[in-house]
């Protein structure tokens, strides 16, 4: 459901910066359904990759083989991401706060002596800064949806309205957060993430119970359309290619 909802966020003809895992699956699902001209950009330097199976890492050979161009890593960040050429960036999160700030660095303790050491920033800080907009995909729980992240790895809306502009961040920031419970979008005035849609069968109470702050709920809260038969068929076929490749 998260994958399908994420795929639906991608408009045809846009350029999308893709990490491995769910973002890659979602982007390839979008390409196989409603967005055949979606341009996939992987930080390994593959521009316009058109894999016919799911890649197993951001450096999978299938990405280089099918790309319009393979460029160096400095080039993908300097010539393609930094100037704002990429419309959509996909990010995950270990922690997320009400302003869409993301932590993927450390949890608990302090930085030098953390409770849990996570992988760190990777491309995320500059994806969050420079893409036209950001789609965050994350499971919703009290562990991840917390009032204040332990470490700001990637900036959402900072401490609220105007902060991105003050920091000189030129991308639009998180436009949507897709979870296993529903969809959150920033309030246009307060920038606070607001529950705007629920997946089929999920209640507002469940969403509130899985959020570490007083979750705002949209007045016109709607349900996410369930996955169509076509979406599910294509998704299953994509997942199957992964099994085969991992062989």
């Amino acid at each position, binding site marked *: 459901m998260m994958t399908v909802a994420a795929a639906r966020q991608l408009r045809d003809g846009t350029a999308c910066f893709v990490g491995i895992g769910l973002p890659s699956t979602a982007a390839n699902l979008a390409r196989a359904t409603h967005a055949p001209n979606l341009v996939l950009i992987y930080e390994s330097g593959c521009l316009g990759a058109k894999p016919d199976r799911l890649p197993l890492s*951001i*450096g999978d*050979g299938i990405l280089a083989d099918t790309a319009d161009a393979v460029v160096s890593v400095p080039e993908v960040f300097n010539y393609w991401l930094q100037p704002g050429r990429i419309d959509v960036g996909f990010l995950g999160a270990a922690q997320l706060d009400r302003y869409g700030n993301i932590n993927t660095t450390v949890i608990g303790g302090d930085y030098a002596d953390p409770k849990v050491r996570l992988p760190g920033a990777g491309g995320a800080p500059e994806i969050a800064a420079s893409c036209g907009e950001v789609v965050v995909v994350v499971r919703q729980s009290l562990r991840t949806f917390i009032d204040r992240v332990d*470490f700001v790895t990637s900036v959402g809306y900072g401490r609220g309205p105007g902060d991105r502009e003050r920091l000189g961040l030129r991308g639009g920031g998180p436009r949507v957060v897709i979870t296993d419970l529903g969809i959150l979008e920033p309030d246009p005035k307060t920038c606070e993430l607001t529950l705007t849609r629920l997946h089929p069968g999920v209640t507002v109470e469940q969403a509130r119970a899985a959020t570490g702050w007083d979750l705002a709920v949209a007045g016109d809260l709607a349900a996410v359309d369930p996955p169509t038969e076509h979406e599910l068929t294509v998704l299953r076929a994509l997942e199957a290619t992964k099994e085969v490749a991992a062989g």
Partner: protein
Amino acid sequence: MAKLVSLAEGVADLVRDGDVVALEGFTHLIPFAAGHEIIRQGRQDLTLVRMTPDVIYDQLIGMGCARRLVFSWGGNPGVGSLHRFRDAVQNSWPVPLELEEHSHAGMANRYVAGASGLPFAVLRGYTGTDLPRHTGNIKTITCPFTGEVLTAVPALRPDVTVVHAQRADRAGNVQMWGITGVQKEAVLAAHRSLVTVEEIVDELEPVPGQVVLPSWAVTAVAEVPAGAHPSYAQGYSVRDNDFYVRWDAVSRDRDTFREWMEQHVLKAEVQA
């Protein structure tokens, strides 16, 4: 001109205790065999530099070779965490590991500055994150034309960079293709460089997407077939994804890890 050497000679000559060592390769062409040789030769006190420390750095760290890690993303790609890396950071096992942490864009630009003979690089990066609070060498810089404030990071100049490539010719010219990441910059930024290659050939047939490192810009070349395994060399091998998945279990426990390294690395036949 690059010297043709054996892997053992190359590591013995070029990688020294206490060095700043970069092993690069972005998912593709990761110099695993060279990393194993560094472990076998018992190097210590290294500052390891790498954008994406993955399994090879988990092994070097778990074997106590490193004192410091300069990086931007430390995980087992597509699988999860690096347990030896976490154990070193969280529990100082087997030795404490200092971290210097950046973003990919920052690390890539630090290599570019090093390759360019500049003391620093300018980028739009890190702004608003907590990274500058914990990483000393991220500063601001003001554009002398517009007054805009940007980010500066210092050049990376490793003592030695090690990369793996598909081929070299007998004169030591190196050819790689597919995803070539930041390897050219990492080699040109370093004082010394060691390139392991799948094979040494008489003539480098041009290949689309190739990056060529001229012999005179490389210190030494060693022929090490399959030297990137479990990573891959496009045109020669495919990624051993199962290995990456299995590594999760091997590396979770200190004893299992030691035993595995003993058997598969320390006792391994040293490649000619």
